[in-house]
């Protein structure tokens, strides 16, 4: 074992990490928009072509009730996290913790509901273009939504683990929580817009 020493001036201020996360979340959101745009394109393209008139096989009807449940869970989760975020002052208050916990738990419920829906679905993946886009769009959305739930959970967990922080400690973890929550919000809003698109296209427009 050996040790080594280095010396530098100007260590980095904490606002840099915050701006990293802020810009990063916007880029992540743009990338995710393009990802789901591909499924939106597939929906409209296959619908327009309707090859062998099998875009919608008879009976390949996604049941709206399940879709509504997933949509409501996602939107409630986002709304809950927005509320929680506004409560965030020094990252420790109970309203923040309770609201953010509710947000990520409801978000997780959305994923569970989605995968449960596949089990109870009365048509399979082979049932035409709409069915294919349905499975692709909802499954990929569920995976990425899980990422959003993860982000919310980490912020909640942080406040549980370190409830008190010294004020004025610039490298204090909670100094990053507010910016991180703000950035998470950007991603959450993007995902909720995607989910609304998914619901409208897959369950209403068909």
């Amino acid at each position: 074992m050996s040790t080594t020493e280095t010396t530098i001036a100007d260590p980095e201020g904490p606002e840099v990490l915050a701006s990293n996360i802020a810009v990063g979340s916007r880029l992540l959101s743009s990338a995710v928009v393009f990802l789901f745009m591909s499924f939106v394109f597939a929906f409209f393209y296959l619908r327009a072509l309707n090859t062998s008139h099998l875009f919608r096989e008879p009976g390949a009807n996604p049941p709206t009730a399940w879709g509504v449940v997933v949509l409501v869970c996602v939107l409630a989760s986002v709304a809950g996290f927005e509320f929680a975020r506004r409560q965030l002052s020094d990252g420790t208050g109970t309203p923040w913790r309770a609201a953010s916990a509710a947000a990520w738990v409801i978000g997780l419920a959305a994923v569970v509901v989605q995968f449960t829906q596949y089990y109870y679905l009365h048509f399979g993946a082979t049932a035409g273009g709409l069915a294919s886009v349905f499975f692709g769009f909802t499954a990929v959305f569920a995976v990425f939504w899980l990422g959003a739930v993860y982000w919310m959970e980490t912020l909640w967990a942080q406040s549980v683990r370190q409830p008190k922080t010294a004020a004025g400690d610039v490298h204090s973890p909670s100094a990053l929580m507010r910016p991180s929550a703000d950035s998470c919000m950007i991603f959450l809003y993007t995902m909720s817009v995607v989910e609304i698109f998914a619901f409208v296209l897959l369950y209403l427009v068909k």
Partner: protein
Amino acid sequence: MSTSAATAGGAPRHGVRIAVIWAVATAISVPVMIWVIGPHIPPGAMSNDTRDQHTVDVVLATLAMPVLMLIWVYFAYSIRYFRQPEGDVIVDGPPDRAQPRIQILWLVVTLLMVIGLATYGTIDLLNDAGLGGGEGPHPLAVPADAKNALQVQVIGQQWFWTFRYPSYGGVETPKLELPVNREVEFHVTSVDVIHDFWAIELGVKADAVPGADNTAFVKPLENGTFQVRCAELCGLWHGHMNTTGRVVSDSQFATWIAAQQTKYSTITKDLPPYSLVYYPQPVRNG
């Protein structure tokens, strides 16, 4: 560049030199391209499509000559004359950063060239030159005598081509024969994966997409043979998916097609009815 090249003290006028060399190079290369190299550019003169495509290629190649010469002459000149002097000391060049007039001039000239090329290409697309490229089920460019065109369906499958003549009883043959001087309307489709019907000397290329009908037109103008190759990777024997087509006189064609109808009469009865797309059984049920 040339305007600021006049320097005091007899320094060489690089801009003028470059312009002169470029003019000479262009004056040589353009006629060479038009009259020496041009005639040898494929795809030959066997059909109306290829003759127009040939013209397009010669025009593009000729227009490329001044551009090519400009870059070559300029870079060669710079490499020859704008060198670091001998010795160990590293000398800097002048601190020029930009001249907006030159940038704008370049931008305008290149934009005009592009707009010109695009216009020329679009006009040509609506003439014979573009008819050979697969236009989909609703072609935009249609030849004048399309109503009397001979309909030939090209069916691609792994790994050979067959051809179906709907106006001759829907007979399907492994060989392609066409009558000379008559407009042909190809309907290209596939029954498994994506292929690409490339009748090379006829100047026809159309993707064979399963479930889709791709239209292309050609009017062969000379008797002879032409190669048919697949130009879209379709699996193991993609490179072996070749055949030879023939362009023959009207009477020879009539004889040939009658012979095909006789030869394949039993098979034709079992074929599915002529359709622009085919879905081979079994179709998977969901």
